[in-house]
């Protein structure tokens, strides 16, 4: 995308200040410090949605709604997305890409060996449990998973599957009761799913878990679509070496997260930043960015033919499915709530809390966000 930027705005120089590592935690630390010190970068990347709520509340981000009008973005992005981006009537970031977090990746060979149809899809979780049982019986890991955040991602998928998109959204807005029995049933399903996973999950990060599917050690892996990059890099062919489908029970729902760029208050080169945001939001910029990354553009006018097979299915889904915000990736709740949820998930995953406590802790975690 930098190439496109340089083409569109040849007079502005782009300096990449990326801080590698730690799944962004190192970058977040530095960002927090710089923003507190009133020494902000010109722009920074953050997940669109509630993740930037803290920055907004602290008065550290500029309202870019006017840029949306100026660059004609209101018509280019789907209305559901715009709604999720709007806070108190204002918009504070420009999404560069859209990832889908409710996908399952599978290894057909492992499935066949377990006596399953590799092309089968599962309408609900209970159907999937039968299949998972068969894989477990065949001696392989049924569902590979990694450290805490991937478990939170699995949890959100289960909630989405069992509760449906309206109630799922209600979990975060407060209209769904966390203490209800439907949530309890979903948590029971989550607990059951965990029994199919590898016991060393806390030792691993997501590439290790996805690798287990690639290597044929595990049958299924629930992961966002950045997993495609891992398959492609190892020259695996979709359909033969691996298959994918939406999380059982979530067909017709697109669980989104978006990498987006912001305009901090006091950005030293505000005009340059605005130019960058224009590129980020432009058709050309988004196409270039997403082709490389394996995600899809936020714009509805992207040409599917430019993208790979998986991306085309994603684009189609994004265009017609119900869009819901991801929990694990900062769209649905602010950081403090996500941290509290992660703590509860980690505790439950180690067997240190029972289902009832888990449910109470999750309810309390979400309530943290509401009391602000």
């Amino acid at each position: 995308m930098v190439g496109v930027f340089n083409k569109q705005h040849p007079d502005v120089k782009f300096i990449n200040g990326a801080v590698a590592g730690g799944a962004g935690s190192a970058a977040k630390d530095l960002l927090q410090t710089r923003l507190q010190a009133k020494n902000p970068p010109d722009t920074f990347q953050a997940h669109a949605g509630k993740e930037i709520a803290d920055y907004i509340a602290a008065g550290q981000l500029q309202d870019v709604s006017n840029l949306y009008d100026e660059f004609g973005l209101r018509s280019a992005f789907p209305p559901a997305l715009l709604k999720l981006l709007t806070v108190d009537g204002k918009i504070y970031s420009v999404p560069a890409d859209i990832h889908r977090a409710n996908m399952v990746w599978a290894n057909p060979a492992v499935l066949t060996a377990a006596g399953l149809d590799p092309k089968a899809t599962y309408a609900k979780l209970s159907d999937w449990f039968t299949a998972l049982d068969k894989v477990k019986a065949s001696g392989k890991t049924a569902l590979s998973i990694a450290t805490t955040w991937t478990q939170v991602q699995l949890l959100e998928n289960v909630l989405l599957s069992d509760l449906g998109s309206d109630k799922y959204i209600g979990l975060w807005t407060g209209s769904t009761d966390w203490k209800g029995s439907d949530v309890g049933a979903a948590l029971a399903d989550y607990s059951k799913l965990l029994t199919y996973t590898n016991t060393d999950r806390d030792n691993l990060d997501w590439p290790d878990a996805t690798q287990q599917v690639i290597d044929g050690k595990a049958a299924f892996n629930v992961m966002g679509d950045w997993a495609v990059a891992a398959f492609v890099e190892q020259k695996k062919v979709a359909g033969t070496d691996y298959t994918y489908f939406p999380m059982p029970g979530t067909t017709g729902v697109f669980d989104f997260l978006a990498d987006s760029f912001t305009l901090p208050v006091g950005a030293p080169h505000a005009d340059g930043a605005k130019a960058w945001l224009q590129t980020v939001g432009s058709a050309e910029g988004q196409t270039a960015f997403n082709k490389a990354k394996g995600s899809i553009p936020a714009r509805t006018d992207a040409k599917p033919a430019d993208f790979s097979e998986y991306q085309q299915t994603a684009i189609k889904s994004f265009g017609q499915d119900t869009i819901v915000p991801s929990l694990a990736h900062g769209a649905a709740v602010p950081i403090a709530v996500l941290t509290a949820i992660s703590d509860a998930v980690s505790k439950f995953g180690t067997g240190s809390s029972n289902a009832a406590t888990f449910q109470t802790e999750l309810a309390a975690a979400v309530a943290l966000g509401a009391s602000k």
Partner: protein
Amino acid sequence: MTAIPAPTAAAEVLKRRPGTAPTAVVPPGAKRFGVARTLRYLLLLFFLLAVLIPVYVLVVTSFKGPGDASPDRAWTWPQAWTVDNWRAAWTTLSPAILRTVQMVVPAAIISSFLGSMNGFVLSRWRFRGANLVFTLILFGMFIPYQAVMIPLLKIMLGMNIPNGIPSLILLHVIYGIPITTLIFRNYYESVPAELIEAARVDGAGMLRTYRSIVLPISIPSFVVVLIWQFTSAWNDFLFAVFFSSSQNGPVTIALNNFANGALLQNYGSSMAGALLASAPTLVVYIVLGRYFIGGLMSGSVKG
């Protein structure tokens, strides 16, 4: 009080009490000399190997190629020796290593001078409350830095000291004061009083005494303190993580990101990186080991 550390200490350990046969817990009548001694050697050897286990894994893995350097092949000899990992580690970490040197050297030098001044004053100047002052300074060495981290963040922001090496130098100097003061005070306590008094008789004031008499004889202690501060600042992670980033910070942060942050774990380079990051302190330890040990011993508050 602690005697002058370093060479004499090491020599002492080597000096043996003549005539005492090693009689450990051994049943009477058994071949005392042979059995006990063999047992001891075996134990020592066992512990030696145990301590070296992680080193073996580190070294061996750092020379392994991508497929070879995986956890299930941790104990095997490399299939094919490669220096690629070292090259990758060097490329990523050398800027951080340079920055760490830039941080550690000034910090060690400044904090040792401060410690020397404090140690001298506190060992020579007997006023009511001198002990209290010393204890108050010493307590600073024990506080968990978490107890001051939040306000420290705010104050550093407020003072506009740039994030990264400058902040860290300041912090290591400040929080190094207690331990350097302790080591120097212990040292000066052992300096013969006549030396100082002789200077005083000649009419020299305290400052003059310090500059012309005390400083020159402090060299052994300076060595100890410099080594200690060098190692402690080089290995620090807590301050680095709060006050710098992998871009402007020392090698501990860079290593942590390099080894633990990458998307696809490259174990070989991580191990090479760990060795690389530890190399300077290990070299100091090997070359100046006796002083290192001396520092350890004089750094502990003897009861």
